[in-house]
């Protein structure tokens, strides 16, 4: 059964009296434990689509089902609860909380969103610190570590709640190539280890090759789908 089903999903933005279509009837399905990339030029609708999948926004038309929930029907509190339980986020600018240490940043969703008991919290944080290779940096604050390390912490934070889905919008945009590959390999490793679905957007052609399924977006429309080892159009 698919983890994510998009049926003719559309999203319009109103700017003054002008309606701008950001997504036009996009349909696709993604299975659990996939490693998927949405690619396309700026303004193609990648971020809009990821925001819809992440329940941060609502579709204007169509139906989008994530982990069995129709995201168009969730209210503000339900969306927050749904995200906290099912979705992890990795941001382009890392978005770590500057007042928390590395381990506290990873622990944050367990503490403030899911209310996990202290023992279990410690166990999960330690496991992820080891998995992303940040054990030695766990007491440092975000401004004391490098960009690549910040993104590794962000990956750990996204995975700590054992989400079904991790969304990453341009996760390597602010990283050099070597670090970008390292982060992507880490994400893939985490997918293998935790069976979590990863969906990321990028416009970096070198990074795209790391994805197992690639969707091409142009002008808000899905123009193609490439599965590693073959190519599907439409």
């Amino acid at each position: 059964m698919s983890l994510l089903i998009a049926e003719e999903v559309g999203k319009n933005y109103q700017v003054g009296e002008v309606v701008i279509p950001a997504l036009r009837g996009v349909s696709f399905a993604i299975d659990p434990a996939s490693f998927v990339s949405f690619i396309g030029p700026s303004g193609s609708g990648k971020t809009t689509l990821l925001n819809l999948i992440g329940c941060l926004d609502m579709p204007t038309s169509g139906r989008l089902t994530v982990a069995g929930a129709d995201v168009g029907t969730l209210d503000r509190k339900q969306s927050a609860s749904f995200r906290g339980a099912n979705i992890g986020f990795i941001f382009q600018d890392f978005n770590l909380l500057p007042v928390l240490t590395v381990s506290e940043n990873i622990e944050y969703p367990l503490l403030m969103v899911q209310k996990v008991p202290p023992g279990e919290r410690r166990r999960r944080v330690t496991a992820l610190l080891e998995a992303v290779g940040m054990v030695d940096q766990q007491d440092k604050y975000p401004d004391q570590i490098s960009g690549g390390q910040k993104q590794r912490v962000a990956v750990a934070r996204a995975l700590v709640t054992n989400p079904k889905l991790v969304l990453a919008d341009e996760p390597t945009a602010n990283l050099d190539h070597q670090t970008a590959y390292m982060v992507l390999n880490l994400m893939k490793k985490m997918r293998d280890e935790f069976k979590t679905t990863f969906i990321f957007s990028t416009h970096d052609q070198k990074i795209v090759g790391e994805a197992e399924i690639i969707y091409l977006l142009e002008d808000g429309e899905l123009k193609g789908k490439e599965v590693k080892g073959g190519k599907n159009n439409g």
Partner: protein
Amino acid sequence: MANLFKIAVRNLLRYKRRTLLTASLITVGVVFVLVFVAVAGSFKNMMIGQITDSMIGHVQVHRKGFVASIETLPLNLNLKGGAIARLEKILDAQPEVEAYSPRVKFGGMFSNFTETSSIRLTAIDPEREFKTVPLLPGRVTAGSKELKTGGILIPELLARGMKVKPGDPVVIVATNADGSVNGKQFTVTGVMESATGPGGRDGYIHLGDARELLRMEDRQVSEYAVRLKKFGNLAAFSAKLEGILAGELNQQGKPLFEVHAWEKLSPFFNIARMIDLMTLFIKLMLIAIVLISIMNVMIMAVYERIREIGTIAAIGTQPGKILSMFVIEGFCMGVAGALIGNSVGIGIVQLLNILKIRYDFGQQQGIVLQAGISPADILVISATVIVVSVIASLQPAFKASRMEPIKALRHV
């Protein structure tokens, strides 16, 4: 909750200079209010003490209608035999009463055998009077503080104007209730300053002398001055005594007595009220300082952390928790300002007491300032600061909690 506090405190420490400035502003406000309350309170208490303990007493009881005619000191409105006995029995039964003193008040002419002037006289039982208004003997600036039969304590103004000194013979002439004029020779026992300023014309004689001078055949009393064990019980006791005495009726079935607390009898009560009003305005200024400074800081904090708010909201933090985070920041700043302000304020008040600052009030000179803050004052001021801090944080916190994560994440 502990984690919310931890995050709030770290966020406050993140902008050390701004937090320090805001906390300093609150601290200055709290210090200002505490010192003002302590000094103004000290002055007010001293003033009330001077008025009540050297002249009026805490409460006075008269025959109904006496106070309305007090300018003429009407002898026909004196309390007599049965009423005096009933009133004294009631006063004896009140556990709140420390002492009470009967007085006869009347007007007369004061003569030094060459000149004559008017005088207002209060006839007292010295032993009971000094228990009721214990600062009265302290007003005697020359001569003896003891008042015996045949002696008179005269006001400083009269002594100076009539060139009379302790030991001099004088004559008091007064009209009794029947209208006949009587005179009696007295010896000046002492000269006393006025409790309220240089204009006083009040003298004191013994009750026995008043009876003789006014040809009173039976015991008469113009007023009873009452001193309470605890001044703080004044309002409750006045109400209680009024209730009790309301049941005491004259032969016409009308109330026999009237009760007045000191506030109703002294114009200085208005000054006391003015001090209270000034204190209220100072407290309102503190509220304004806290409200504006905290709100300003929290609005800035929300604006600067929009992306962080977007991040925690995207991760799944509930709006209520985001609201709590910012409200707790305001709360912590209020607590810090109140704690530091109270510490500094108490320190300054202690310093004022150590310095023994002196000031004059009326005829009293060199009164030592005794600034004091009650725990209730500290609690009320602290609670006000903290509650206002929380209220000031609510609007920015609410704004943060209602922020759309998608818009917040896009914020640059």
